[in-house]
């Protein structure tokens, strides 16, 4: 398989491949919104004592995925806007899967698989699953024809596969075996980056134990571990019934199915140029952001940006977000740009990484750069320089699509491959005219989706 495009942003502050256990926090702030989920259906009352693993809230629009209580304590609903707070939080050591809350029931014909899917849904594992094409949550009770397992580790900065798999290889394999059963005879594709790092060796080891795994060797550049891209490459149409899941999800599934306990701890990568000691932390959802070590507190004169996710596709943590959100796998911290660079166009640029060889850094051996959130230039009309086309992993022409999206001619934009965009953000990253391709395309896709939905309802 031939891959084109892709690019590794040399961002400083890669999390060290070790896991730091965070001390227990007495108060947990669980955001009721995350990137995909909106936990609007509350299942507990204010002041109620909750058990570890109990369902606190559900997202009624997403197959009732639950927000679990990561620790036992007292629930507070109104003390913090947008959050569910657990006071007097403590590890009760007796977490169990909540079976009392109502969830959509598995259809009886699914039998054993259905029961296990029900457990995964209740134990908060289903939220790791995604439809590779839409990014949305697939229906747990429509079994897939194929599953794509991606280490998704190439974006700066997301957890390192070696860290995730350390001592948890068995759970990983158990998770894979479950997916194998669930998909019937459908293939389980495992994306395999090159090299012989710990993570890759673990993945190879897993592949050795599961002969039915279909390996897909991918290049070592961002974003070839993207599940959407892989699904396109593997020739799956946007017809649904393909599941995409990361290592965290497979491991969590394995842990839950092996112990019948919900998987409440998670490993989060904390990285970025202004984190003092970037590393991975083992923690729970709702852990106060201010207590995570190494994360600088922004001040008036030196503000920082907290990002839920990586530096290229992550979402800015809202100002009022107090704790780790339910979907957070990485926390990237960048200094907001406050400086006005002097004569930057004449800078020889030994310390500046550029995709094109327009800075002297092209003559230097590999190094990492302290990026800030600076746009580094002024917005200009597109010159069709085609840098975006050079980096695009999906093989589309972002500059062409931008033309049509800009003119609100979405039908043409779709014809030229808007739907193939995997939202990796590299086009916006390289654009010398500083055009917000990724954001533009996301909006255009959403508009198209709504239009199609309206058409269907009309018909």
């Amino acid at each position: 398989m031939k891959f084109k495009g892709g690019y590794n942003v040399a961002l400083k502050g890669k999390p060290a491949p070790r896991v730091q256990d965070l001390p227990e926090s007495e108060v947990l702030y669980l955001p009721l919104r995350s990137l995909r989920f909106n936990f609007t259906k509350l299942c507990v009352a204010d002041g109620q004592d909750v058990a570890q693993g109990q369902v606190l809230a559900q997202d009624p629009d997403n197959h009732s995925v639950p927000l679990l209580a990561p620790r036992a304590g007292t629930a507070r609903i109104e003390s913090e806007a947008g959050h569910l707070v657990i006071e007097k939080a403590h590890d009760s050591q007796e977490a169990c899967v909540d079976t009392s809350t109502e969830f959509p029931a598995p259809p009886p014909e699914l039998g054993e698989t259905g029961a296990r899917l029900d457990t995964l849904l209740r134990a908060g594992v289903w939220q790791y699953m995604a439809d590779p094409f839409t990014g949305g949550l697939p229906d747990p009770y429509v079994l897939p024809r194929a599953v794509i397992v991606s280490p998704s580790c190439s974006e700066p900065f997301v957890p390192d596969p070696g860290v995730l798999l350390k001592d948890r290889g068995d759970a990983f394999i158990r998770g894979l075996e479950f997916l194998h059963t669930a998909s019937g005879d459908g293939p389980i594709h495992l994306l395999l980056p090159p090299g012989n790092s710990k993570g890759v060796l673990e993945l190879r080891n897993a592949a050795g134990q599961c002969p039915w795994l279909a390996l897909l060797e991918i290049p070592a550049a961002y974003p070839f571990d993207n599940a959407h891209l892989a699904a396109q490459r593997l020739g799956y149409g946007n017809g649904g019934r393909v599941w995409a899941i990361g290592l965290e999800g497979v491991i969590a599934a394995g842990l839950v199915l092996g112990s019948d306990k919900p998987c409440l701890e998670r490993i989060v990568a904390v990285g970025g140029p202004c984190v003092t000691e970037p590393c991975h932390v083992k923690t729970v959802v709702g852990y106060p952001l201010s207590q995570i070590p190494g994360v600088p507190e922004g001040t008036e004169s030196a503000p920082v940006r907290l990002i839920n996710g990586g530096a290229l596709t992550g979402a800015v943590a809202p100002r009022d977000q107090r704790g780790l959100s339910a979907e957070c796998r990485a926390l990237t911290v960048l200094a907001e740009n406050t400086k006005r660079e002097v004569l930057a166009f004449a800078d020889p640029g030994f310390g500046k990484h550029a995709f094109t060889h327009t800075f002297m850094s092209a003559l230097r051996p590999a190094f990492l750069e302290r990026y800030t959130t600076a746009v580094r230039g002024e917005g200009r009309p597109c010159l069709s320089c085609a840098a975006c086309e050079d980096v695009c992993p999906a093989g589309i022409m972002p500059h062409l699509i931008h033309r049509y999206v800009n003119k609100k001619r979405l039908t043409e934009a779709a014809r030229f491959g808007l739907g193939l965009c995997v939202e990796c953000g590299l086009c916006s990253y390289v654009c010398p005219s500083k055009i917000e391709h990724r954001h533009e395309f996301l909006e255009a896709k959403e508009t198209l989706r709504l239009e199609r939905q309206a058409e269907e309802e009309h018909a």
Partner: protein
Amino acid sequence: MKWLLDLLEKMRPLFEERGKFALLKPIFETAENIFFYPSTCTPHAPHVRDPLDIKRFMGVVLVAMMPCIAAAFYSFGIRVLWMILVSYVVGGICEVTFAIVRKGEVHEGFFVTGLIFPLTLPPTTPLWVVGVGILAGTFFGKEVFGGTGKNIFNPALVGRLFVTIAFPTMMSGAVWQLPCTDAITAATPMAQFMTRQEMIPLMDLLLGKTGGSIGETFHLGIIIGGLYLMYTKVADWRIPLSYLGSVFVFALVGNMVTPRIAPPLFQLLGGGLLFGVMFMATDPVTSPFTRSGKYVFGVLCGLLTVLIRAFSIYPEGVMFSIVIMNAFVPMIDHVVLGLKYREATA
């Protein structure tokens, strides 16, 4: 540089709405942003951005032209400076006027146009003709289309075309000063070949010891500049490759058929071919944006150049062929996209 920033801050109210010079806001902003980049933060993901911007992009083109300019100074003296200055001042006034009318910023592309244009002129061109030419180029070549990024024709070439047709006596005949002398001649290498079938030695062509437009004679410098542009990926290598390749092939074949067509190496190193290929045909705005379209564009440019050089009254055909092909760019892209996305529409 703190003092300058303070000064700018002090001056800012003058250019704000209701300020004394509110009309000149684009000039103020341009000046400000040349010295101090805006401190904008990324509004959406990706949260980090590549340092390349349009100022740097155009700056790289200017750097690539430095060998030609240095050679021009060496060969034709201080006159070159006046020509460049006139071009920048007159073109700049035009650009700024439009920026004011549009209430937008001054776009950096002008810095390239304003430098390329004088380099395409004969060394004896009167300064007022330089002014008229750049005005026509900026106005008709760029501003009427809506500014940088929206123009169909290369503005510098439009200007050059305008003066060629408007002032034929000043653009051809005995207007070519020989490098490092005061001697004026009518004979550029291409003209000499056309009238007398004489060929200048290739080494003289390479080192720029012949008459010609001020920027086009020192071919070694142009080659270095062009390679630099391609190395930095500011210019796409596909156009120079296909353009030069097609000139070579058509000249090779044509030379066997008729002696009116000059042999390939002479074609490549004579006249304005290399300058046009490296700095004008590669302009991303006015060349096809599709990859295969770039090859088509280059090959057709090459064919036209060879034909015009051999069979028209002009000894030189690069300017015409690029402008003609500029007009076909939207069509080339349309056809290429139509073929590429054929399945999608069916």
